[in-house]
């Protein structure tokens, strides 16, 4: 201290090359503090810097935050001769210095007389951690929230104290809740006192947050240890047998080798290297090279080498088994003291049960939304198939036409909400027209020849797909949903559903209602039902079956078009998108039972939940899920050839 004071005097006396214009407050507490740790600060080593940062952070000085901040930003300089710390801003060869205590301008100096403090990234991280406590109490709520997020991402033991200190003065209820929760989590991870930790752990029983599981899982970590004497102790979770799930005999043996409890085994490749290295005059340890074409012969040759001391002894297959049998393998908690670990395991298992339930709910919602998509895709098909007995293989292409209509509308109408509102009726109109045209030109010549209809509509499907490819190219085109459909409805960390899927679900319900109203409440529906049941009788009562068929087909196709817009919103729009849905749509209709809208609904639900269910069983492989689903449906048809809701009575028997 005296030394600094002398220096200051010297400076005052004009002995320094460039005098400060204004007196530097050398005895300001912050400068004093810095000087106390001056050497380690100047040394800037991550290993030794800790006390300096802690002292600054814990000083309670109001300037400490600014100092830490600017230090972190590499804006702190130290006078080469004076050893005094200043904030500096280098401008060419000059350094504009300000006081660390009050920020007053000290004036320009020659830059080379000062040394810039350049904390490395490790030190900057430590400074940032130290800064947290200031940020947590910052008057600006955004700063506080940012700090909280930073801790949540990457928590450290030191944060716990800072966090606890900041809780009392927190004015904002939301932030307070977050802070309290975070404090509990940090307590679990970093608190010294086990009782405190266990209390915190139990406090999270049944909490679905991912953060809770992230905090608890490390505590429940186990390690496998081998022992030839029985191990007891509260940290032993239990015995694990080699060869059981996730712990093969090879793993067990490798563990023994790593613990120097067993001779190593040799990899055939390494063995080969050693044998090759020991080839001597066409033989290895007396075994001619040409005989070494089996693993057994090689093992013998290697054993001979080992016996001669020219290779490390290794365990043979038989030996490994004996050695393994001599050890028992235990799982031991290593993440936390046993009582803490057990508490964590108990809470985790409760949480996992609850997670499973919620995952089932989430899966159910997924299945429901997939079912609504299949329902949308299949409803048009069900109409044409059920009412007219016509298989329309080009149905998928009508879906595609609807989606491309939406895409084209968006090219002209940039507002997404408006364009979707426009696209839906337009898609209906386009595909209705296409359907009517197809009915007029192709299908009505082929009534009562279902296989021919199937084939002719194939032809149309092939042609339409290629035309779309020629016009729009092969790459996927976007059909963008309006902004208000972005995002998801989040119920908790596990159960959430995107708004688009909700919209599709609602659309599916609307279609169901529309269909029921049209069929049961309108003249058209009455006539359609009449034609379905007895076309000749209907004709004699003045209904024109030709017209009805045409309108029905148009209606079915039009719905396919709208389904196309809906599907395009959440999937890609390509020329092949129709083909992607056609088989599932047929499955839906066939499984549900032809000629009944409720059947289609059930069929869609079944196909959708089945697919999601199988995907859940084998999440890595959606292709396999589809394969198994189709196989299941083929088997299902065995037992209910006419679908879930079969037409009964003589009509079905005929």
């Amino acid at each position: 201290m005296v030394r600094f004071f002398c220096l200051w005097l010297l400076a005052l006396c004009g002995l320094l090359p460039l005098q400060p214009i204004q007196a530097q407050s050398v005895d300001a507490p912050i400068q004093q503090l810095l000087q106390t740790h001056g050497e380690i600060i100047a040394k800037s080593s991550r290993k030794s810097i800790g006390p300096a940062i802690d002292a600054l952070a814990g000083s309670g000085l109001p300037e400490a935050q600014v100092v830490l901040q600017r230090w972190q930003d590499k804006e702190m300089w130290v006078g080469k001769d004076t050893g005094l710390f200043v904030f500096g801003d280098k401008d060419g060869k000059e350094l504009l210095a300000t006081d660390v205590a009050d920020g007053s301008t000290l004036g320009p100096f020659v830059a080379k007389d000062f040394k810039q403090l350049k904390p490395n990234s490790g030190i900057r991280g430590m400074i940032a951690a130290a800064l947290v406590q200031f940020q947590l109490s910052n008057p600006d709520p955004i700063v506080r929230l940012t700090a909280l997020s930073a801790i949540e991402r990457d928590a450290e033991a030191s944060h716990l104290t800072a966090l606890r200190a900041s809780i009392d003065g927190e004015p904002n209820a939301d932030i307070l809740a977050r802070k309290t929760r975070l404090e509990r989590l940090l307590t679990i991870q970093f608190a010294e006192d086990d009782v405190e930790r266990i209390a915190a752990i139990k406090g999270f029983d049944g909490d679905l947050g991912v953060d809770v599981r992230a905090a608890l899982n490390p505590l429940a970590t186990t390690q496998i240890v081998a022992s030839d004497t029985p191990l007891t102790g509260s940290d032993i979770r239990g015995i694990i047998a080699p060869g059981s799930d996730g712990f093969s005999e090879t793993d067990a043996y490798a563990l023994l080798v790593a613990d120097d409890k067993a001779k190593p085994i040799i990899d055939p490749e390494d063995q080969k290297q050693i044998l090759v290295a020991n080839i001597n005059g066409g033989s290895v340890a007396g075994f001619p090279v040409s005989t070494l074409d089996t693993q057994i012969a090689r093992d013998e040759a290697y054993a001979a080498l080992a016996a001669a001391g020219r290779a490390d002894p290794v365990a043979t297959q038989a030996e490994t088994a004996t050695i393994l049998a001599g050890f028992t393998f235990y799982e031991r908690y290593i993440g936390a003291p046993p009582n803490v670990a057990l508490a964590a395991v108990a809470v985790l298992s409760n949480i996992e049960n609850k997670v499973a339930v919620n995952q089932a709910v989430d899966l159910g919602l997924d299945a429901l939304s997939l079912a609504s998509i299949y329902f949308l895709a299949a409803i048009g098909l069900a109409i044409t198939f059920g009412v007219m007995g016509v298989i329309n293989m080009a149905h998928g292409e009508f879906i595609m036409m609807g989606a491309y209509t939406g895409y084209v509308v968006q090219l002209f109408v940039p507002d997404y909400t408006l364009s979707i509102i426009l696209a839906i009726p337009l898609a209906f109109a386009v595909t209705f027209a296409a359907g009517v045209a197809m009915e007029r030109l192709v299908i009505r010549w082929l009534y009562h020849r279902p296989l021919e209809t199937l084939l002719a509509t194939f032809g149309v499907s092939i042609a339409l797909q290629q035309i779309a490819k020629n016009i729009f190219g092969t790459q996927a085109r976007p059909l963008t949903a309006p902004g208000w459909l972005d995002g998801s409805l989040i119920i908790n960390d596990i159960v959430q559903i995107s708004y688009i899927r909700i919209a599709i679900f609602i659309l599916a319900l609307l279609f169901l209602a529309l269909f029921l109203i049209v069929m049961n409440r309108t003249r058209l529906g009455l006539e359609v039902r009449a034609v379905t049941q007895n076309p000749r009788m209907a004709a004699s009562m003045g209904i024109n079956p030709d017209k009805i068929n045409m309108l029905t087909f148009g209606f079915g196709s039009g719905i396919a078009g709208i389904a196309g817009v809906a599907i395009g919103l959440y999937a890609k729009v390509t020329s092949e998108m129709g083909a992607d849905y056609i088989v599932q749509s047929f499955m839906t209709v066939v499984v549900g039972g032809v000629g009944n809208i409720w059947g289609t609904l059930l069929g869609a639900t079944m196909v959708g939940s089945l697919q999601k269910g199988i995907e859940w069983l084998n999440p890595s492989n959606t292709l396999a899920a589809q394969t198994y689903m189709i196989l299941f449906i083929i088997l299902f048809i065995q037992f209910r050839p006419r679908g879930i809701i079969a037409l009964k009575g003589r009509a079905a028997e005929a």
Partner: protein
Amino acid sequence: MSALLEVSGVSKSFDGFKAINNLNFSIGEAELRAVIGPNGAGKTTFMDIVTGKTRPDEGRVIWGEKSRSLLKMSESRIAQEGIGRKFQRPTIFEDQSVADNLMLALRKDRNPLKVLFFTPSEADHNRVATLAGDVGLADSLDRKAGELSHGQKQWLEIGMLLAQEPKLLLVDEPAAGMTPAEREHTTDLLVEAAKTRAVVVVEHDMEFVRRLNCRVTVLHEGSVLAEGSIDHVTSDEKVIEVYLGR
């Protein structure tokens, strides 16, 4: 007289509608029987049940000397057992020649491998020619069945039935759409056939039934209303009320 076919207590309903209601029916080994009844009396369903197309909800259908149940058998098995059926509308294979149609129906092993390696013998050709002669199609053996007139198609189908050599023939409205001369010929064919086997004729036309001159069973609402000679049933009060009197 031992019964060839005995149907007892059979019921079948479609969506709550009782097409057959506790039906009892039996027929002897060489007997001609006419079954009459108004629309919806269950005549076709009755035939469907006997031929295995429809399974009844309850009841027994017992067949032949060994008294075997037909209910567990497939249609083809029942046909092989010796029950032949003629549909209301002539169902023949229009794309194939008359000879092919008859050859197809000829009583032979139905096993696919046997059929694959089947070579018709001279006797088979003769049998086909004879059958064609019986049904008046001797000159049309090489014609496509589709080219025949409606009546000829009916006969061809009867010929095919005869070729099957069934023990029981179920014939659904054989005379529908025939000229009077054709009807007469059909009647002769059926009466002739009934000499060696059981024949059940389902018919609407009372004149035709009268000419068959056989025992008549009247069906109404899925069960037997009356049974006996044509004169007996036509004088029955109930029959007159539900059927004839209208």
